[in-house]
């Protein structure tokens, strides 16, 4: 995910520059909105929502950024972190759905982000088998980390699987 950060940083600075009528070079990487880049105006926040949602939709066409999400952002660094996390979550959700397909034939596109294992009819042994596939995802980010069989048996579906994988790679 770290190789995406320069791209996200450029997008964030470009967006803020366009909203505030400033050049890219005049916005430092750690700029805070409170210091001459005030983003309390609803129109400015709407523009952030539009640009950030366009970016997020490159990864998942059904995803978007809300007004409430953007209102909470405090500066450039915060925006970069927020977008990077959203992209990471989308990527991991995709990988988790692919992992489930390796245990039971359910094409990832047919699985919703809130699909449950009981609806998928996964047995205990199938959930245990998932641990190895989830570990493959985790080890892309953290080579020595793993997800154990008792952890995967306790999972209820896609949503908490994504949460567990993200916690493990932190």
């Amino acid at each position: 995910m770290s190789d995406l950060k320069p791209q996200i940083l450029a997008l964030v600075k470009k967006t803020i520059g366009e909203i505030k009528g400033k050049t890219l070079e005049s916005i430092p990487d750690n700029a805070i909105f409170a210091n001459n880049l005030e983003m309390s105006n609803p129109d400015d926040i709407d523009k952030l929502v539009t640009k950030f949602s366009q970016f997020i939709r490159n990864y998942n066409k059904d995803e978007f950024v809300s007004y409430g999400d953007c209102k909470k952002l405090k500066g450039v660094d915060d925006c970069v972190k927020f977008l990077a996390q959203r992209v990471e979550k989308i990527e991991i959700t995709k990988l988790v759905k692919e992992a489930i397909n390796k245990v039971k034939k359910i094409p990832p596109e047919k699985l919703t982000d809130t699909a449950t294992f009981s609806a998928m009819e996964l047995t205990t042994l199938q959930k245990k088998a998932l641990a190895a596939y989830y570990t493959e995802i985790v080890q892309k980010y953290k080579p020595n980390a793993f997800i154990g069989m008792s952890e995967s048996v306790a999972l209820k579906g896609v949503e908490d699987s994504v949460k567990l994988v993200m916690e493990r790679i932190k």
Partner: protein
Amino acid sequence: MKFMNALIILFLAANLVYSQSPVIKVQNAFQGNSQKPQPATFTFTKSIGGAESFLIDAGLGLNFDINSTTSFSAFGEYHRNSLVSKIQNTLLAGFALETLINHDYPKHDLNFAANYNNNLIDKTEAVQLTGEYTILFYDESKLNTFYPNVVCHIGNVLKLEYYPSIGFECESRFQCKNDSAKGNIIRALGKCKLVLYPDSSFINLKLEYFCNFEYRYDAVNSTQYSDFSHAYLQTGINYTIWKGEDKASVKISGSYSKGSNPLISLKEQEFYTISLLVQI
């Protein structure tokens, strides 16, 4: 007291062996294939002026993940049934290891357990070593493909799950009331648990039929007893009264049991049970 000390030492040792936060489990038993564990059962009756009676079929385990395909448990079990003709009163404590091998399909699931067994009725103490094997195939969810350890569909009306396994049990009885019961036993083991229930998309009936069959044969028996063959059948119906999120449920269960299970010192007999099963 000796048993409690052994149990505490086992749990502490398990904590030292692996420092990852453990998962605490309460279920019927920990040895062998644990794909469809039964909930623990507790019943106590004290008649006025009469003796008390018990039905306790429970185990407490601490489960640790060693890696993504291997987990380790320290467990203690207590099986006491004074509601039947041949009373059972057995304590067990030990370690269990489960490993899922082969990255591709079919995957092979191996369960091993080593435990101390104290039969308080026969005053027999033993060390037991058990191993069980089962297989998992890639589940393509096709109608009428009956793979083990997955949910199978019988048309659009019924669902079937079955959990077969084969294995062995080694038992060394080192302390007995009479010397004729002392010795070593090696048993071959075959087990199958089957659950059949209606497809909820067809009919929303919370009823399931289950059948659990276990067969043991003493390949080696150096004790003076000559009952080499041990079959155990438990079959019945569960009705779900309440089902919460995931596995939490309350069921009424009616079952018929016949046979013997030497691993938990259940002697040859047959009986009916009606019980309330609570799973959290």
